């Protein structure tokens, strides 16, 4: 009997505790003024919707906009610095959905958070809208999202009716050789961008975001255009020419034979954020040089 009473008391306390926590969270999270974003894509979104002045900390890999260079860096996906993060007294922390440890720690510290995950291109604008609603900037966020969608539609319209070259989108390989070629597969925002920019993905049937390709697979798929994304460090023109030449041993591939292997630099291709229209426009210019302005 005593035991049962004790258990009931425990449950009551627990519920009270959780309710109190929830109440505390909902009041403190009404309109967050101090936001930490560990995700490059959401950092860019916050700046794009005019909330840049509320961002007080970013992740290791944030590069855009240039203003982020003045902000403290709090680690990345695998190594968030929880102490530094709590010390900044954020009112909202945007974390990767998969950062389970960090989420648990933030919950224990009573800091509100917003888990981020992404799958395809449509998630970019839906994330902008949801994030805007969360921080009390619905109108601005909707305008930003509408702008992104309009620009993507414009790209789509420009290439409509043109022949869609079979394209391979490579985003990594061992420098100087054709080993460990990583390419965009049949889903994900890069695949969607390629479709919008008027290309046919040669890996459309491989339903994975990333595919490690052998040279045999490149030869067999015979892409007409190979777009190789390069990001991070800057390469001089000579290095770019050298890395483009690496492909020349696959001369039966139409892209190689017709000199349509293109190396492009720019992190707008790897951040599924508000700069996706820029990426789409650049891709469209590569795939349809005749229509480019």
């Amino acid at each position, binding site marked *: 009997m005593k035991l049962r009473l004790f258990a009931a008391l425990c449950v009551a306390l627990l519920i009270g505790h959780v309710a109190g926590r929830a109440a505390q969270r909902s009041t403190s999270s009404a309109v967050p003024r101090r936001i930490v974003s560990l995700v490059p894509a959401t950092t860019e979104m916050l700046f794009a919707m005019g909330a840049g002045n509320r961002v007080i900390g970013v992740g290791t890999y944030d590069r855009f906009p240039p203003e982020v260079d003045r902000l403290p860096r709090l680690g990345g996906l695998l190594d968030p610095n929880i102490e530094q993060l709590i010390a900044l007294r954020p009112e909202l922390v945007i974390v990767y959905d998969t950062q389970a440890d960090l989420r648990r720690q933030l919950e224990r510290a009573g800091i509100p958070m917003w888990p981020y995950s992404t799958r395809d291109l449509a998630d970019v604008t839906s994330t902008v809208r949801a994030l805007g609603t969360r921080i009390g900037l619905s109108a601005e966020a909707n305008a930003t999202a509408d702008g992104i969608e309009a620009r993507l539609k414009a790209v789509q319209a420009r290439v409509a009716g043109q022949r869609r070259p079979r394209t391979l989108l490579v985003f990594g390989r*061992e420098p100087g050789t054709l080993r460990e070629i990583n390419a965009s597969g049949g889903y994900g925002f890069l695949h969607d961008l390629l479709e919008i920019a008027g290309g046919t993905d040669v890996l459309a049937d491989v339903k994975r975001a990333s595919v490690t390709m052998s040279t045999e697979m490149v030869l067999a798929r015979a892409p007409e255009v190979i777009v190789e994304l390069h990001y991070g460090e800057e390469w001089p023109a000579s290095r770019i020419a050298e890395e483009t030449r690496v492909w020349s041993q696959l001369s*039966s591939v139409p892209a190689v034979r017709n000199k349509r292997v293109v190396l492009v630099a720019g992190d707008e291709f790897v951040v599924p954020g508000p700069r996706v229209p820029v990426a789409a426009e650049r891709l469209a210019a590569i795939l349809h040089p005749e229509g480019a302005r």
Partner: protein
Amino acid sequence: MTACVLAPLVGGTSISLANVFDRTRPYAENIDAQIFFVARLPRVLAAALVGSALALSGVVFQALLRNPLASPDTLGVSAGASLGAMLAITFNLDVSVFGLSAVPLASFAGSLGALAIVYGLSLVRRSGTSTMVLLLGGVTLTALLSAVMGFVQFVADFTQTFRNVRWMMGSLDVASYSPIAGALLPMALAWTGFATLPRVLDLVSVGSESAAARGVDVVRTERIALVSASLATGAAVSLAGPVAFIGIIVPHLVRLIVGADHRLVLPGSALFGATLLIACDVVARTVMAPLELPVGIVTALVGGPVFLWLLFKRR
């Protein structure tokens, strides 16, 4: 040999031999020929080289250390090669010599570094010290290098970590002939060393005292064996990554078939190692086609159970 001939004909895409050797079509437009000569033939050659090198090194290390569990990884040469490759990947090392890219070069340099340490250990070692010292030294070196690799992984960013992990799984898609040519030089040296070994290894594997009693220069033999096996391992790992289990199971399987005579075990292991790795690579590139499994996963999945079976069957 049969495997060498048949393996290039099998793959994720079907090609026609008639097209491959069709002289009327220019090579630049002949997809079948390019798949054959650019994608498959180098792979099969690489598999043959790596498989035989790892198997031979396994035989030599097992005889030298008088330990059935010794393998090309035991003395840290493989770990040295892995560390070299990881450093090249993580710090975007950008050198190339004779068409060889940074990763295999750094990897081979790493294996030479580890070899130098192991060789140093063997110099310190006098007759009377047991092979246990060499063995423990190697295991310690491997652990040490693994710790450094852990640190390198820690400072690497996301894509680099991904590439490091992929490299550690092993891959034979060498994509051209120049890495193979590069690996041939150290391998030729190693094979010259191996060629002097068969008879004396029989004696050394029984015990260094009894070998010395029969007129074998034990210290010299051990050094030749050590350097040759380490060179072969370093070249193999820098070509294809650390391909698991070939170096440990092939010698045992071959001994089961031909007996303990090293005049048979050495060439037998070379042939069997080559064949096994070619076969595993065929599995790796067809079982999930068009995707390819890293060959190290296949060798470990096949090798692990076979080795366990061997261990328990002997009891």
